[in-house]
Each structure stands twice: as structure tokens, then as C-alpha cells.
């Protein structure tokens, strides 16, 4: 369940457009559960999009990014069949990764 990423990568003219949806609660640490106990902060802090071996974008996130976060980016170049990967790490040391090929 944890760590999953669904990625689509498509050519748009000269650009490649990547749309990634990530499975993560992005818990802020400010909520309390039904019993009144604090729900610990649990959110992705760093995420990167890679074209083959080449990082095209790296991001740092706070807990204000929505749960099950979405990330869309465009980068120059890329050919159909190239690998696109997304990787992340969170504040609890968890990691996630996903891969697709450009269509």
C-alpha cells in the first residue's frame, strides 16, 4: 500500500508531460483522532522526477501538500519509450518509487 505511485508520461510537442499521483496520507500532525489523541505528522518531504538517470525536478514539500499528492511537470525532450521515474522520502524515513515509459 505505502510507497505506490501511478505515473503517466506523454509527449506534448517537444515537451514531455508527467502526471504522478502518490499514495500518502500527508498527515500534518495537527489533527486529533476520534479519541482525542494527536495523529503524528507523516508527510512526503522530498520528491524527484527523473528522466532515465537525469533528474528533471526535485521538490521539497511540507504537510500542506494535499493527501495522496499529485505532481505534474513538463520537461524538454524525452522520446516515446524512455523511462520516467518518481521517487520520494517522507519525514518518518519511508520511501516510495514508481516508473513508467513515455508514450
Amino acid at each position, binding site marked *: *500500500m505505502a510507497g*505506490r505511485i501511478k505515473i*503517466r508520461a506523454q509527449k506534448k510537442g517537444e515537451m514531455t508531460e508527467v502526471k504522478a*499521483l502518490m499514495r500518502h*496520507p500527508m498527515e500534518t500532525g495537527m489533527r*486529533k483522532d*476520534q479519541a482525542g489523541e494527536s495523529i503524528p505528522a507523516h508527510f512526503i518531504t522530498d520528491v524527484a522526477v527523473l528522466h532515465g538517470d537525469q533528474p528533471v525536478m526535485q521538490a521539497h514539500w511540507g504537510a500542506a501538500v494535499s*493527501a*495522496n499528492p499529485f505532481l505534474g511537470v513538463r520537461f524538454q525532450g524525452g522520446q516515446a519509450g524512455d523511462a520516467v521515474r518518481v521517487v520520494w522520502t517522507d519525514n518518518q524515513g519511508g520511501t516510495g518509487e514508481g516508473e513508467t515509459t513515455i508514450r
Partner: protein
Amino acid sequence: MITRWCLLWLAFPAWADEGVFDQYRDLMGDDNPAIFVIDEGEEFWYQSQGPSGATLEACDLGLGAGVTRGAYAQFPRYFADTDRVMDIETRLIHCMETLQGRDRTVTAAKPYSLRGDFGTELEALVTWLAAESEGVVIAPEQGHPKERAMYALGEEIFFYRAGPHDFSCATCHEQSDKRIRLQQLPNLTDHHDAADAYGSWPAYRMSQGLVRTMGWRLQDCFRQQRWPGLTFGSEVSIALQTYMAVNAAGGIMTAPGLKR
């Protein structure tokens, strides 16, 4: 998988075209986190659990043991083996007990996520099964006398006023083109609205970060009406689902939807 991506946009309620949220939905696109929950539900179906270590693969959802394609669209329905009308959730609890040996007092104790949870097994299974009925015509069985009686009971409850506000379901859901604040209210007595509404549950609730089921939605309605709590798997719950499903019959399943 591609079909799911294409059909998910249909999950947007038709009445959102009052315009207010068009720009919002447009910018949102069609990436619905429910797609993860679909996969999770499928995994639960094939997972060995309980004292017997069986999976749910032999579960009969009305179309024969293990047939999942199109099954959700025909609920609620009568089952001879239990001699009663069941919704998809009570049927799953039944299969967990009979096939996997899992105690129903445990499986039915907490069917729905609470704040801070990331989804329950039942929510995931219902999401996957709804996706297995994607694009299928809504066609709840009404051939058996108990099925028809369940519809009649649902209709009676729908118009029954109670609670400190003297609300019935009809108070909010009997007229067309009404809203509460900026939220459109479906007229559940009207086939078109009922089909849009019923066909888009279960749905990813953005404000909750969870996929919620039709059964959960009814529980929340009762809470919002300040009615007594709706018991999970109760006759009242199944009756109301039957009423909505029959009014929606002929429409198309678009679930899982994407809702605020």
C-alpha cells in the same frame, strides 16, 4: 486500466455545471486517488485470511461464485442462502464469515475509516467491486417479493420525518435544483439525479482523503439530520440503498467518483 482513466471524468456530478466549480474541476484534472484503493480492494479479494485461510474468490455476489464483473450494479439483492436482501457490504461480511471463518462481530465492528485512518478493508473491497461494474447499467434486482418489499420500506423511510429538525431524506432530496450553500442536492426521486448520485458512489472524498461508500454516506446523512445513528448493515440502510438504486436503475455506474 485505460478505460478507468477515461471513465473517471464521468464521475463528476452533472449539476456541477452551474459553473461555480467548473474552473476548479478543470484544474483538478482526472487523477482520482481512488485508483489506489481499487488496487487495494483487489488485493484484499485475493488475500488468504481468517481461520480457514481462504480468499474471497469463491464469494457469490449474485452472479455466481467469484463473478465480480457487473455484480455491484445489481445490488441490493435477495440471496437464497441467507433468505434476505443484502447490500454489497453485508454480503462481503457474510463471505468473510462463511468462506474465511472470520467473526462478523469483529469484521462488522469497524467497517468504515475513522479520522486518521487510511482506509479499511471493506472500503477498499467495495471500491474495487464498484470499479468492476464501471460502465455497467445500474440494475438492482426487484424480482423477489423481499426485494420489492425492501424498496417499499426504503420509500417509506425516505419520506418519514423525524428527529429534532423534523427532517426526512425528502426534505433535502425531493426537489430538483436545490442546494445547501454551494453544494447541489440531487433529487433522489428523479431518475436522472438518482442515477448520477447513486452511480458515483463509492467516491473519494477530498475533504477526508478517503474513499467512502454509499452505506457510509447514509450514516453521515443520518448524523447530519440529527437522527439516531444508522446501524451498519441494518434493514434501514439496505432499504434506503434499494430505494435509491431502483430509482437510479437504467443509469450507468461511474464509480469511484471524486467528491468534495
